[in-house]
């Protein structure tokens, strides 16, 4: 297997319950670990060989810190999401499986429209967008674009771009790289819930200029970033989520259009994937003796349900009012009528 070939599938293992994790899952002993690929917030990824067929897989060992609550919430969402995703650039799930490539789906969840408030402490600190650091709970796809910017910068720099240790340190590093946020470039950022936890008036938090150009042109081992590459990182690392580059804008960016090598049709770089289906298995339900009528406790639920739904109705209204209050930024001109790359059109046929 050559080094650039991607690990094509991932198998989940859970450290403290090696053999009986899930009925359909084989014991971890069926796989021989070859090496450690990487470590994320939620687990360690190994390159491994499936002894039954000699295929190379990625094995992700999930951390089970709060084992009292069963499968960790992040793992549950990650597995569920990855099972639905099917794309050559996303690791394919093989058994009860999780994946970690450049993308981390640890807290991926399906969007709802309009979005509801989400779990506050998300994303590995290094890739966390400033609005999340400041406690924004209605974060959007723009926060992911920030993470993409951090990772793209990391590839250019050959080292993590913003390796913060704790939240305040993370913000210091952001400011050291980009200069401090102001009301002009990021209106009303001081109104975000946690903004008062950060002392923006200290010298460390006051820096007028961006140093990103210097950082990315003199890097350890990496070639200096081209002007277009630099521009793409800068457009992704914009403080105000509303002004940050979006996915379609990024695809149209001059980095991809003016600078070689050009994007090519995905089929030209197609990777081979092998698939495998999980079978059935024994379980704890089914059969068994029927002892009495169980201990279901019913009663009085309908009235409560109605009350609850009425309450929710009110919340929904408040919520809608709240998101309607988000300031419209007229200066921000979203490109309309996005035209995809010609090359991508070819792939559709």
């Amino acid at each position, binding site marked *: 297997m050559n080094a650039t070939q991607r690990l094509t599938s991932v198998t989940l293992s859970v450290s403290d319950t090696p053999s009986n*994790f*899930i*009925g359909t*899952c084989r014991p971890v002993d069926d796989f021989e670990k070859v090496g450690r690929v990487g470590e994320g917030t939620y687990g360690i990824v190994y390159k491994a060989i499936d002894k039954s067929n000699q295929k190379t897989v990625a094995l992700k060992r999930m951390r089970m810190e709060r084992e*009292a*609550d*069963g*499968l960790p*919430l992040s793992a*549950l*969402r990650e597995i*569920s999401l990855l*099972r*639905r995703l099917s794309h050559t650039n996303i690791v394919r799930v093989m058994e*009860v499986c999780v994946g970690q490539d450049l993308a981390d789906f640890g807290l991926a*969840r*399906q969007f*709802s*429209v309009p*979005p509801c*408030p*989400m779990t506050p402490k998300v994303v590995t600190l290094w890739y966390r967008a400033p609005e999340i650091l400041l406690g924004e*709970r*209605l974060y*959007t*796809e*723009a926060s992911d674009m920030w993470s993409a910017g951090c990772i793209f910068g990391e590839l250019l720099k050959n080292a993590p771009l913003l390796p913060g240790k704790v939240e305040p340190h993370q913000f210091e590093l952001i400011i050291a790289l980009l200069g401090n946020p102001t009301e002009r470039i990021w209106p009303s950022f001081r109104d975000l819930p946690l903004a008062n936890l950060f002392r923006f008036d200290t010298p460390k938090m006051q820096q007028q200029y961006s140093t990103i150009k210097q950082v990315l042109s003199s890097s350890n081992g990496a070639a200096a970033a081209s002007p277009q590459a630099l521009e793409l990182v800068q457009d992704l690392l914009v403080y105000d989520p*509303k002004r940050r580059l*979006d996915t379609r804008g990024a695809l149209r960016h001059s980095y991809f259009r003016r600078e070689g090598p050009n994007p090519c049709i995905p089929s030209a770089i197609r990777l081979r994937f092998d698939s495998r289906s*999980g079978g059935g*298995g024994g*379980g*704890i*339900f*089914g*059969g*068994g*003796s*029927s002892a009495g009528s169980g201990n*279901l*406790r*019913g*009663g009085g*639920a309908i009235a*409560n*349900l109605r*009350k*609850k*739904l009425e309450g*929710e*109705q009110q919340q929904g*209204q408040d919520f*809608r009012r709240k*998101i309607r209050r988000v300031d*419209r*930024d007229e200066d921000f001109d*979203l490109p309309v009528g996005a*035209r*995809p790359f010609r090359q991508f059109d070819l792939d*559709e046929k």
Partner: protein
Amino acid sequence: VMMEPVYPEGVDDLDAEDACDPMMLSEYVVEIFEYMKKLEVECMPNPNYMESQKELKWSMRDILIDWLIDIHNKFRLLPETLYLTVNIIDRFLSLRVVSLVKLQLVGITSMFIAAKYEEVIAPSIKNFIYMADNGYTDEEIQRAERYVLSVLEFNLQYPSSMSFLRRCSKAENYNIQTRTLGKYLM
């Protein structure tokens, strides 16, 4: 291939007003809903699963759901969590024969899973055990969780009717009466 949508005469672009509002995802919203409609079909339980169950009857499902609604109410969970819970139960019962003594375990476990999936902060396993009147142990719920998830192959991406209602509500300018009636019917 991306195409500019063409609207019939008298029909407005529903998302034009959101072009400047990243919270409304106007860029992706049409694709998201097309996908959700596809998902909805995939997530349908077998409507006749009770015929394959040996010990269960529809009336027992009623009691179970009423009880879960009670718990849902006490935990103050999101409506999405309840809909996902019921969907997990029905899909699981479409695939496995369950004894009556285990029905409540299926119910509580489904809600435990749904809460983890949907809630910002999910109730702990201890909370659920308390609600089940200590009828099940921590270990039983954890094993049930793994089993339910493996039977459903971790497919929890159920597009709840709430999402569709929100979309319809938007299309008719948030008429409060229609919206409330819609919610009541759900």
